[in-house]
């Protein structure tokens, strides 16, 4: 076993835990689980969510929400990044719901897509997030069971203490784990013990995609929102001579038509 200091992201974990201590989220919806197969199963959503850190929420019934930090642009990081968290948290992938994280680089660090770097750069942070959550659940169980935390083991979202023959699902200790100090050190899994990383898992958004449910920027409308369109010159280096906006402005629904220079520095030179 390899022990790691949790200094990477520890500050942000602390922050989120403090935030989450007071506020738990009440859920009212049904979401499709990550369970593959023809019969897409709906997971029973919990009554309460307990946020262990920015990446992980666990319901009282053991359902786990994992935040996917980076933009999904077809590289399937919305599936693969949560898989890494789930691996170290040691939960059943069938019991995981993935949610797109909001922009918060303090918690999620590098939230961009590019250069095939999402997994490489996210790897440590994602493993830490999962392992930290697992450790906090173990500590919560150790307190209640009054046993050394080192004797507690986990498997697929269940905590075990074999000597006293006790076991409990993560959901039972999620509430207690939220109030705990973020551990100074955590243990990461050995690569040979991986059961999720390195396995083939289907796109978590597959069922939404094949039924045309809204997932993309163009699908959302906000109150008072307007659409803007840029008419580009047909070739680089061309300059606008003149533009008659009267006809365009006369069309129904057109609020304004105007020209602009996209490179202020260029404009300044002239």
């Amino acid at each position, binding site marked *: 076993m390899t022990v790691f200091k949790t200094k990477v992201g520890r500050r942000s974990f602390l922050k989120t835990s403090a935030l989450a201590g007071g506020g738990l989220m009440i859920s009212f919806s049904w979401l499709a689980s990550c369970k593959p197969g*023809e019969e*897409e199963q709906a997971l029973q959503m919990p009554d309460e969510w307990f946020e262990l850190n920015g990446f992980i929420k666990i319901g009282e019934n053991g359902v786990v929400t994992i935040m996917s930090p980076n933009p*999904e*642009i*077809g*590289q*399937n990081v919305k599936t693969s990044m949560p898989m890494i968290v789930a691996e170290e948290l040691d939960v059943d992938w069938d019991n995981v719901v993935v949610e797109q994280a909001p922009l918060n680089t303090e918690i999620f660090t590098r939230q961009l897509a590019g250069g095939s770097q999402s997994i490489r750069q996210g790897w440590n942070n994602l493993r830490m997030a999962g392992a930290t959550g697992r450790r906090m659940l173990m500590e919560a169980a150790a307190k209640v069971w009054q046993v050394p935390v080192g004797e507690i083991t986990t498997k697929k979202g269940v905590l075990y203490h074999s000597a006293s023959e006790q076991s409990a699902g993560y959901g039972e200790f999620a509430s207690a784990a939220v109030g705990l100090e973020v551990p100074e050190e955590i243990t990461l899994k050995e690569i040979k013990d991986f059961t999720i990383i390195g396995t083939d898992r*289907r*796109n978590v*958004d*597959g*069922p*939404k*995609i*094949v*039924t*045309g*449910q*809204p*997932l*993309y920027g*163009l*699908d959302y*409308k906000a109150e008072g929102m307007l659409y803007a369109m840029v008419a580009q010159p047909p070739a680089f280096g061309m300059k606008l001579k003149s533009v008659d906006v009267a006809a365009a402005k006369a069309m*129904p629904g057109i609020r304004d038509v105007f020209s602009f220079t996209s490179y202020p520095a260029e404009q300044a030179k002239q």
Partner: protein
Amino acid sequence: MALFSLKINGSTQEVDVDPSTPLLWVLRDHLDMVGTKFGCGIAACGACTVHLEGNAIRSCSVPVSMVGEQAVTTIEGLSEKGDHPVQKAWLEIDVPQCGYCQAGQIMNAAALLNQNPNPTDAQIEAAMSGNICRCGTYTRIKEAIKTAANS
């Protein structure tokens, strides 16, 4: 503006729009059915594919005035529970990556299988050649169409 009564996914919808409005924008902007995607706007990418009387058409380039009495089917109405053979095959083969083009791919594939329940590789390639996928899911699309054909 003109009133149009459209048969969409089994129900009748009234819209008051300019007759030249492409069916795509009637669906997306006027009826809030955003499953059908805008890609190129010139019938060159296939993202906006819907069915008109069971045939695949590019809705970005069909004015609403041309629809008339013909039944429109969109990705939202391909099946009630998302269990059309093509949708099931798409999940089984895990076709979608970003998913943006997939509504169009699925609608085009469903229309192909309506007309030709057992297409050859060449027929699949010919029928699907107008549907572009930036993620490059083409090999899985072909596999899923074969899976759907055999189901």
